[in-house]
């Protein structure tokens, strides 16, 4: 059991860094080792709000390329990008539905700029985000027949969730029908991508008396049979923000704030481990981090994230091999797997490519491994954890490892340079394996059978002292060792 005053040793610092960023470099580990959990969280959360966007071109591939390059930059704050990717998954929007990479790039900036800000403000902003307006049909929400698409996902995916922690429904279909009315009449000017309100396309009660009053949550949410009106600040333009305000006042059957609980649970699921998908498992930690941060009072994300990063829940996956059946681990997201590998091995892609094996771009690598940024499969985002692992994604992870291990052309910085990462004077196969594992941060994660398999591979051409001054040997076997390390099970999780 620990708290914000618990000191991080080097191993805990490594865990902290790779869960809140993309891999842990030796110099970063030495910066964080010796800090308390609270100091580490404050340091990691200290980044300034960024207005970076990955280009404004018409070409989706270029937007994706720029985005991945930005993740690789040394000065890009790791936690900012982990959060931005988390929100991209949460407010999942894809270019296949939007049909305009420029809008995807602008949404990416919105998510980055608000990644640790106020969540209520973020939800209000995303409802006005032109990519979202296009993706979930607010643009096609006409007063004659209000379109339910955005209203449903606003409730189901962005704020409340279908069920609360006790399994009770958080809303009814009739609530979605009413909320769809609020979003009628919002349009954007093509080319300028500027949202505006067209009152002639808005559903006003006087025109549609048969649809009843603009009242929602008459038997859920904690307001009793009177429910809540979302036109109490005036009909028309104010309604969409009013709806969001009401959602953020919704309480579940335990009397707790529904949005606060669901949002905290989702963040724990991402930053701690997949066990937090289960509300029963999640509830104690969820309620603790909300109580500590006051998130249900103000919806500021930064204190909530800090509370998560100092909580024991965040450290549940920090453990050394051999693991037991109850050990918690998370599968790295594909973007994390690719970017952290390149960072830890200090390989700089050239023209978006790792110059080995297939010569395919980073964008293609992450897509084949199962996570193409700006192209999540649907409004539900990506499926996490074990769902990342299939025969197809194993093959794609292996292809990336192969490319890394065979970087032979290009300049010095585009190549895997294993003898710069480990001491070239080492001759003992076991010591070489251990040093290589340390570079990738998995020295304490292997079981003996795996270590033996690596040693057997390294000595397949003969045992005895190995010569890391022999360039051919290094090129073939030491590079090959790194390729296998990147493919082994322990490296896929954190």
């Amino acid at each position, binding site marked *: 059991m620990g708290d914000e005053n618990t000191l991080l040793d080097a191993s805990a610092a490594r865990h902290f860094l790779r869960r809140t960023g993309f891999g842990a470099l030796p110099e970063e580990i030495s910066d964080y080792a010796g800090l308390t959990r609270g100091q580490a969280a404050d340091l990691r959360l200290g980044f300034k709000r960024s207005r970076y966007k990955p280009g404004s071109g018409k070409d989706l591939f270029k937007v994706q390329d720029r985005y991945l390059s930005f993740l690789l930059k040394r000065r890009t704050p790791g936690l900012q990008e982990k959060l931005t990717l988390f929100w991209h998954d949460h407010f999942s929007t894809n270019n296949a539905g939007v049909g305009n990479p420029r809008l995807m790039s602008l949404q990416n900036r919105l998510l980055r700029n608000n990644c640790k800000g106020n969540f209520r403000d973020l939800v209000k902003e995303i409802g006005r985000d032109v990519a979202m307006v296009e993706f979930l049909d607010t643009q096609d929400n*006409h007063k004659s027949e209000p379109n339910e698409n955005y209203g449903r996902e606003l409730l189901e995916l962005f704020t409340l969730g279908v069920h609360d922690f006790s399994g009770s429904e958080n809303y009814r*279909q009739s609530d979605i029908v009413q909320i769809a009315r609020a979003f009628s009449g919002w349009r954007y000017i093509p080319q300028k991508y500027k949202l505006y309100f067209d009152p002639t396309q808005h559903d006003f009660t006087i025109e549609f008396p048969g649809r009843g009053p603009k009242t929602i949550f008459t038997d859920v949410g904690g307001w009793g049979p009177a429910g809540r009106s979302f036109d109490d600040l005036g009909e028309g333009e104010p309604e969409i923000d009013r709806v969001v305000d009401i959602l953020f006042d919704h309480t579940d059957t335990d009397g707790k704030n529904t949005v606060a609980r669901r949002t905290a649970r989702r963040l724990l699921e991402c930053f701690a481990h997949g066990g937090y998908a289960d509300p029963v498992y999640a509830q104690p930690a969820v309620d603790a981090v909300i109580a500590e941060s006051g998130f249900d009072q103000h919806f500021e994300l930064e204190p909530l994230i800090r509370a998560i990063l100092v909580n024991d829940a965040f450290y549940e996956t920090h453990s050394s091999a051999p693991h037991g059946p109850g050990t918690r681990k998370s599968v790295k997201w594909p973007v994390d797997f690719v970017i952290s590998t390149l960072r830890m091995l200090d390989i700089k892609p050239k023209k978006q490519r790792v110059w080995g094996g297939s010569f395919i771009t980073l964008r293609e690598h992450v897509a084949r491994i199962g996570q193409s940024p700006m192209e999540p499969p649907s409004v539900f985002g990506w499926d996490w954890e074990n769902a990342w692992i299939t025969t197809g994604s*194993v093959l794609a992870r292996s292809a990336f490892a192969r490319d890394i291990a065979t970087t032979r052309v290009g300049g010095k910085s585009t190549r895997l340079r294993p003898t710069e990462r480990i001491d070239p004077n080492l001759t003992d196969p076991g010591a070489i394996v251990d040093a290589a594992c340390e570079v990738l941060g998995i020295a304490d994660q292997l079981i003996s059978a795996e270590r033996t398999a690596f040693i057997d*591979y390294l000595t397949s051409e003969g045992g005895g002292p190995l010569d890391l001054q022999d360039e051919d040997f290094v090129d073939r076997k030491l590079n090959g060792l790194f390729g296998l390390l990147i493919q082994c099970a322990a490296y896929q999780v954190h």
Partner: protein
Amino acid sequence: MPITRRQFIQRSGLATAGALLGPGIFGNPLVKSAMANAIGSRFLVVLFLEGGNDGLNTVTPVTNGGGLLRTAYEGHRDLGGSSGLQLTPTDLQLTGIGADPNTGADLALHPGLSGLKDLYDAGQVAVLQGCGYPDFSLSHEESRGIWETGNPLGASALAGTGWVGRHLAGCFSSSDIPAVNIENFIAGEYFQNTTSVLAIRRLRDFGFPYDEFDEDDIAAKREAFEALHAAASAGDPSVIQLLGDAGNATLVSSESYPPLHNNYEDDRPTFSEAYSDINRGTARDLREVAKIIYGVSNGEPNVNARYFQVTNSGYDTHSNQGGADPDGRHFDLHREVGDSLKVFYDDLADMGVANDVLTLVWSEFSRRIPQNSNGTDHGSQGPMFAIGGGVNGGVYGAHPNIESSALDQDGNTVYTQDANPYRSTDFRDVYGTVLKQWLNMSEFDILTDVLALDSGFDPASYWTAADFDLPFL
């Protein structure tokens, strides 16, 4: 408590990716004999229309017959222009199928489904109307999960596994690879933790990525990969075992499956070209299935898959759905699927296996009966299709009652198993019929292992057909 799809995936733990082989795989390679049990020489293909296919503009009433389906349809769907979704009798004149068994109304497939109509005319298509489940969910995620698990009642015994997956788990062991999903992921229907399901997008690209410049080292790399993943399979926790098992299955199948591509292309260039001409994902995906079926039929070593999954996306037509205009979105989706299924059937017929392949088509829900301004919101019961030489072609089940007075307050048709001329078809009966009549599972095993109800539920309330005997098979 019902769980969401995401929770479902994560709770299913080892089952999730499906790609599971026991540690004994390399000592006991791929025994073919286990395949000879339930499915025999047959194949099952599941085609998922993702997003909620508009059933009313898939199987459309052309006349009223003894009821008011056409009149009601014309009231719900607007005529003309880019926003009108109504299909006129003229639009439907070439794609007529049989009459609705309940009202006698003439029915027609959407004009985009002309390929499927050809198969219908040849007696190879069963149209299963009004498929759904009680207390239907309008959430994509929930409803899809319900169809995938075959578990609308939240029976605890079925949590975390798919309906095909539970069947596979009952028939195959850890040393088998009975199923392939033509996807980058494993579909929910296939979740289980007993046997292996492969995720292959394209066979040609499924070869193991060795470094070809260092050919002398390939054997050592393969040996190391195998040893590492065998160690992980025997390790802890379950996610490490999953990674080990998936690695093993990948290695073995990456050696046996890629040659199927060239075999097929060499032997069947005309059919390959026919899929290419459609130039759409569903055609290309079904071609991958055809390549594997061809390989299995030819007895290729370590190729034994008999269960397949293909998905076509884009059916969430809240806006710009389109009607009979061939440039419309829904038309385009229908044409893609109808034409692809036709080529697939013809290909299988030419291979001589058309009578051995059943393709089952489903979507997570249908769409709202009244249209919105130019699309449709989420709905309830919709049609399924069962296609193949072994199918008794025709129209089964009642078209849902779409008269305004019969719709719920949201404008959706209502699932009912009451004695009622518009009785719904429970989708579990379709599954049950496939399991019993096509996959040769006993009723007892189906009710125990695949479509179990928690105690306290009376099966009679949930099955449309007694004993899973819907007559389409």
